[in-house]
């Protein structure tokens, strides 16, 4: 991969991030509801309100507020949360690992599920089974993720209470962790009871986010595999006497994976966005859940920090997808 490629993508990412910063900064100040109005004490005077606005820098012109915030962000200071009274970056760093672990777990589930669907559907092409699988796949895609979430809560949380419906771990388990990466650190330090408990708490929210993505992966991968299955080299493999399973796994899947990989990368960014609703339904303590509270309380510094974090994650994932696509397809490196 050329340095020019990396440089151009980095510049592009910085410009996008700056755009995100400007848009979110202006938006949160334009939408109805200001945080000061929510903080006014019953006996506050007009002078108290003015002082409160000054305290949070909201009395300055918007361009001045932005320049101050921009300079702070460049120094790694995202400001102080109005509702939580803590450094925004600290809050986000405490909560981001939960969301990342959940999103990656959901992605893994989606990739495994989607690949299985594509493989089975391709293997059973032109049969009734294929139509049944396609119909089921279509249903997974059509039903919104929050409906899946509520269904899982009712079925697997209440009717068959086999999985927890809220939180990230059982509050009664005592584990002394150094980081917020519960799953990774739990595995590395051999706290397997805790790891299993964390996984149990992740299954329902991860499934909720994974199902629609699995359906997309399944459909795209299956279409790509169907295209591959009529290629001459597949015919040649058959003539050579390779089994159907081997043709599917070694020839068709490998060649069909490139478009599915690119799509998965893009869809992963949407999956991260989907954590906002899913984390709320399952009371999962990640940044998605945090974002809703921040909006309710009109916590401007926290909203800005969170949107910036989401934006940075989107850009990073897209850069990784671009890079991996370029690695797999040399023509893209010179595009």
């Amino acid at each position, binding site marked *: 991969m050329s340095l020019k490629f990396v440089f151009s993508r980095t510049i592009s990412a910085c410009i996008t991030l700056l755009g995100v910063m400007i848009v979110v900064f202006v938006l949160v100040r334009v939408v109805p*509801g200001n945080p000061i109005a929510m903080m006014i004490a019953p006996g506050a005077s007009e002078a108290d309100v003015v002082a409160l606005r000054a305290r949070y820098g909201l009395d300055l012109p918007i361009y001045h507020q932005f320049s101050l915030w921009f300079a702070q962000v460049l120094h790694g200071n995202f400001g102080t949360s109005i509702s939580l009274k803590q450094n925004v970056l600290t809050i986000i760093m405490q909560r981001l690992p939960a969301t990342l672990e959940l999103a990656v777990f959901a992605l893994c589930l989606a990739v495994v599920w989607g690949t299985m669907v594509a493989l089975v559907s391709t293997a059973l092409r032109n049969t009734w089974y294929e139509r049944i699988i396609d119909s089921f796949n279509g249903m997974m895609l059509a039903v919104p993720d929050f409906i899946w979430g509520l269904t899982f809560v009712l079925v697997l949380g209440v009717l068959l209470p086999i999985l927890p419906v809220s939180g990230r771990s059982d509050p009664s388990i005592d584990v002394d962790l150094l980081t917020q990466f519960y799953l990774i650190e739990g595995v590395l330090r051999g706290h397997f*009871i805790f790891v299993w408990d964390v996984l149990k708490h992740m299954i329902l929210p991860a499934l909720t986010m994974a199902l629609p993505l699995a359906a997309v992966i399944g459909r795209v991968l299956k279409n790509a595999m169907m295209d591959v299955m009529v290629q001459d080299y597949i015919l040649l493999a058959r003539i050579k006497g390779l089994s159907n399973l081997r043709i599917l796994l070694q020839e068709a899947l490998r060649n069909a994976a490139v478009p599915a990989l690119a799509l998965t990368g893009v869809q992963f960014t949407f999956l991260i966005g989907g954590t906002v609703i899913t984390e709320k339904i*399952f009371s999962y303590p990640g940044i998605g*859940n945090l974002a809703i509270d921040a909006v309710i309380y009109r916590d401007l510094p926290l909203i800005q920090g969170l949107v910036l974090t989401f934006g940075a994650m989107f850009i990073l994932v897209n850069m990784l997808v671009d890079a991996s696509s370029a690695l797999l397809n040399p023509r893209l490196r010179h595009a």
Partner: protein
Amino acid sequence: MTELSRRQLMQLGAAGVLLGNGLAIRAAHAEGDTVTIAYNVNLPSWDPTTGLSAVNPTIQSIYRSVFDQFIGQKPSLEFQPGLLTEWGWTDDRKQVWMTVREGVKWHDGSPFSAGDVVWSLERAGKQDGGNPISFIWSKIANFRIDGNKITADVVAFEPTLFKWMAFLTGYVMPKAYFEKMGAEGFEAKPIGTGPYMVDQFERNGFVRLKANPDYWGGKPAFGTVIYKFVPDVTSRVAEIESGSSDITVDVPFEEFDRLKDKEGLAGVSTPVSDIGMIFLNNIDAMNDKNVRLAAHHAIDKQAIVDKLLRGYATPIDTLEAPQYAAFDASIKVGYDADKARELLKASGFGPDNPVKFKIQTTRGLKPKDYEMVQAIVGMWRKVGIEAEIEVYEIAKHYELRAADQLAPAAFYNWGNAIGDPTTSTGFAMFGPSPHSVWNTDDLDGMIGPLWGETDETKRIEGWKAVDRYIAQEGYVIPLIQYQQPILFKKTIKVVPNIAGSPEPAQMTAG
């Protein structure tokens, strides 16, 4: 060395997973004295005296578990000794005096003293200290300590000063510990003198509390209390129905009725210090007294309670609920659709020529808020009022209210856990208050002198007179006093609390 086959390895792995699962479940229920509460709000901050969360009434039951208030409050709203055992004003109302409880320890084992009380009051009264109620605390100054006795000068007489000591931000904080740890350090490891100590806190996840063995009020019945923060109502219902939690609050009344009779569960729903009301703004059609009174008389509150809230609310006619100090049962504004029609007719309105205005409401912030407004608009339509509903977020409501730009009618709820008229009628109706909507000189003239009234009997009677006048003039439409539904396992006895959610220290095994 024994070698394991792949199959054996997998079997061992599966056994390990199952064992792990079993251990985890045992860990969750190892202690019979653990109570788990699926709670409806998150705990944003551990400092109960500063910031937005300090004035959130729902969070107070968590704060009261860890911290003690200057003055305690029974579930019935009656006041009782807290960290202050006695308190009062001098006869001339120029000074206050307080007696501090002796033998109390902070959770870190250090002794609690009168110095902590004074430091907490001085910190709370600082204008730039971040305490939203500093306007109350700043009304006493020049503290003097003599053993466990404190005296202070009254800067301006505030009749509700001691009531606030049992209300929002009225908590005693550990001077030495806070100064040593700083605000962020305290946030990470808070201590108080309350019945429970913070054992583990996962922001937006849960807080685990351990009983304080040295609590001056006696060790609580349950050794461990876990608050799971479950803001989503569907998940809260699932938590209690699946048995994952022992108690939950604020579920829809339909679910409450369904679950309270379920085997192993019980439910109680009692009135709380929170009312639903319609603010009227003195603009447009609301400047016509006939329209205001007609709008009030046209609402069948009992029908709303029975049909929408399944009977779990109490109709009210003033901003004072029956448990409040200035409640006057003789003030009535009854449902009378014919009278509403007559009043409107007198102003030239009727079903064929309706008076038109906008009513604003939240949707889903309080139980059936939007549905109640829909029902009210339907009742109004029958008498000759055509109201257009605008749904907005609560943040927008605060912004409009602060700027005095609410629509002619706006639905809202108002809490008042100390039950004093200043914190209900006072702040809601006094023009200069940033939270009032109705601003007219006649009403302000009646309310003004009551703020500094030193004779308590005269003060309460004065507020009753204000409430009567408001009802006669139709300056606001009080609707209902809410109830809080609580679902719990039958193995636990829960004491409902009018001030808000039940407190773990008052729970016992059933």
